[in-house]
């Protein structure tokens, strides 16, 4: 949700109050800011730079190095199609293509209504159930292209 500048400032103050502002805290600070906003807004990065006394370019350089950080507004739900080795040999590529078709977006993008992000990840560590898809924190194992739509109703597997 986009928030007013005042509200954002307040949120950042809240984050900063938990840290001392040391360089070694940079990554935990960025993680907490992202948790708060869902991504790392440009203004927030500038504030982080000021707080940690690390140059803006250094903050940006560090943040962009790590896959976890995002710089644009993200969707409500995050779909991660695992493309680890085990998933790859059990058909992750066609599965990813099926999600792209179903959502009408390319991998790495967010739907227009900000409901879903679609991304590929290297391995979620559930290789025994390959191919695997993670929707937020729920893991869908032994996936098939025809079961794509059931992942888009975000909830755990109902074991009935």
């Amino acid at each position, binding site marked *: 949700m986009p928030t007013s500048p005042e509200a954002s400032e307040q949120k950042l103050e809240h984050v900063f109050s938990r840290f001392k502002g*040391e*360089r*070694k*805290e*940079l*990554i*935990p600070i*960025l*993680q907490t800011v992202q948790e708060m906003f869902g991504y790392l807004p440009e203004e927030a990065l500038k504030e982080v730079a000021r707080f940690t006394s*690390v140059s803006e370019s250094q903050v940006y*350089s*560090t943040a962009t*190095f*790590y*896959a*976890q*950080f995002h710089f644009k507004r993200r969707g409500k739900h995050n779909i991660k199609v695992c*493309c*680890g*080795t*085990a*998933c*790859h*040999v*059990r058909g992750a590529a*066609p599965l990813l*293509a*099926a999600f792209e*078709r179903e959502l009408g977006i390319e991998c790495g993008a967010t739907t227009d209504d900000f409901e879903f992000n679609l991304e590929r*990840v*290297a*391995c*979620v*560590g*559930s*290789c*025994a*159930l*390959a191919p*695997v898809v993670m929707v937020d*924190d*729920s*893991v*869908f*194992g032994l996936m098939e*292209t*025809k079961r794509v739509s059931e992942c888009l109703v975000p909830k*755990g*597997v*109902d*074991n*009935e």
Partner: protein
Amino acid sequence: MSAKQFSARIDTPSKLTETKEICQAAFARQKSRFLVCAGTGCVAMGSLQVLAEFKRLIAERGLDVDIELLFEGHEAKTAVSFSGCHGFCERGPLVRFEPLGIFYTKVKKTDVAEILEAALDNGTVVERLLYQDQDGNRCLTEHDVPFYKGQQRIALERCGATNPEEIREYFAQGGYQALAKVLSAYAPEQVIEAVDNSGLRGRGGAGFPTAKKWAFCRAASGEPKYMICNCDEGDPGAFMDRSVLEADPHAVLEGMAIAAYAIGATKGYLYVRAEYPLAIARLQKAMEQAQQWGVLGENIMGSGFSFNPEIFHGAGAFVCGEETALIASIEGWRGFPRIRPPFPAIKGLFGKPTVINNVETLANLPHILLHGEAQFAAVGTERSKGTKVFALTGKLRNTGLVEVPMGITIREVIFDIGGGTSEGTKFKAVQIGGPSGGCLPEELLDLKVDFDSLRSAGSMMGSGGMVILDETSCMVDIARYFLEFTSHESCGQCTPCRDGVYQMLQILTDITCGKGRPEDLALLEEMGRTILAGSICGLGKTAPNPVLSTLRYFRHEYEAHILEQSCPSLSCKELIAYWIDPDKCKACGQCRKACPAEAIIGEKKVAHVIEQSKCNKCGICLETCPDKFSAVSKITGRQKDALLVGA
């Protein structure tokens, strides 16, 4: 009914022994229990719903007894609890009925009432939920299941057999006894000597002797020293560290405290991937409990030794599994590896002496120090002692996590434990060691699994991913897949890795698209050797392995792609076509309706045809064509050219 929580402050080793006895007695008052697996795999298959149903039905029978009451001397007819990963993820959700050890697989919420009735009322077993081996025999306990028979569990000893969120169970099973022994009876140098005698080598990939690393750090000057547990398990296809962290977090913490004592560290970090939320939660809980009981933190068990580790959430960079990159990341920088020497043991985190050990390495330590280094050293081969955990995945029958003695053959792991390839497919290769490893062919199945044999065959132990490939897996595509991964994960600092791996990837991509040139193969080999020799860190130094090993053992597949424009495994999209056999097609129309590209032409009673120019090769036609017709197939090479003439 509820009771006051049984808790105590363990301030001497004898208090720990006393606590162990109290806990053992308390849990013994629980006459039976249903242990539901709550590892990530089983949770994905619905085990939490199964657990909830057990709780509900046990409460309905009036049998639920607060665990604290056991400590007050009450008895309980039965109980339900959860465990971490058993390893047999393929068959989840798993439920074990103790003390008999009856092992139920693929349990659904609707099966719970029947299981309870059988166990508590009739003293029988629900046959249909028992694992059935290949000869059709039902296996009553885990020990009867072939998947477990060939295993020898040290690091995974308690995984699946204990509640990871209950430190008192860990105490009952002898938890923190090794730490107590070390703190009260060993000088740090003696710990190092004991581990040296055990022959333990690092389980994270390179296989460096653990005691040697410790000794360097112990001797180095600089305070404070740091002990880091590397839980940044990033190899695609490996998930043993995650399982250990989720199933037995105290073993890792205990191992870490032992290591810290040996090297003289008082501070430490557990560097965990953000992709492992459950592992982080379990570790957090375990740390709080351990500190509360006095087996971690200040003045541990009255010994005067203090150790305070904290959890660092990795931010998603594969290269941070490399020691020096991990250090840079904790310090708040990009995860750029640093040139060694100086090694972290001399100059590591914040410039201080630092030891970084992998999760599995640390999980072995309590066992080694409690049962003696000789017992550990008796397992394995001359130069690779103990056991290794492998994540067995890909195209085989029993996927999951296995722990085997070093020196076992690859064949035994894949066929005796893993049950061989999935039904109806033929073994082609096994990829060992993830992006740093290599693919080994059928001829090498009798190779021993140990650090040195694997390396000499052009593969690597790596972190222990073992992906089984069958004839539908294209070896060129597998090599390309790994290079795409390493190219993406290269930190970009040194040229051989950044540009070299990228260029190799371009060449491999060309080959999989049918644009390869005969001279490419020699070029790939030359580039691979240069990158191995010239990269700064382990990522670059091993990145070409998947290509070099497939070129060594599966060169003919590369040649087929280049010379015949053919992908023998029918896997490379650019080289195959989908084709409907007009003699088999019954014009049912199902593929036509399902085709998202509207590429299928046909009408009633007229055999359908795929318009190749429109086809995006998604494969849905092949999936939807009814088995009884099987009219759609994939074609490549000369067959493709012949069948698609004029199409």
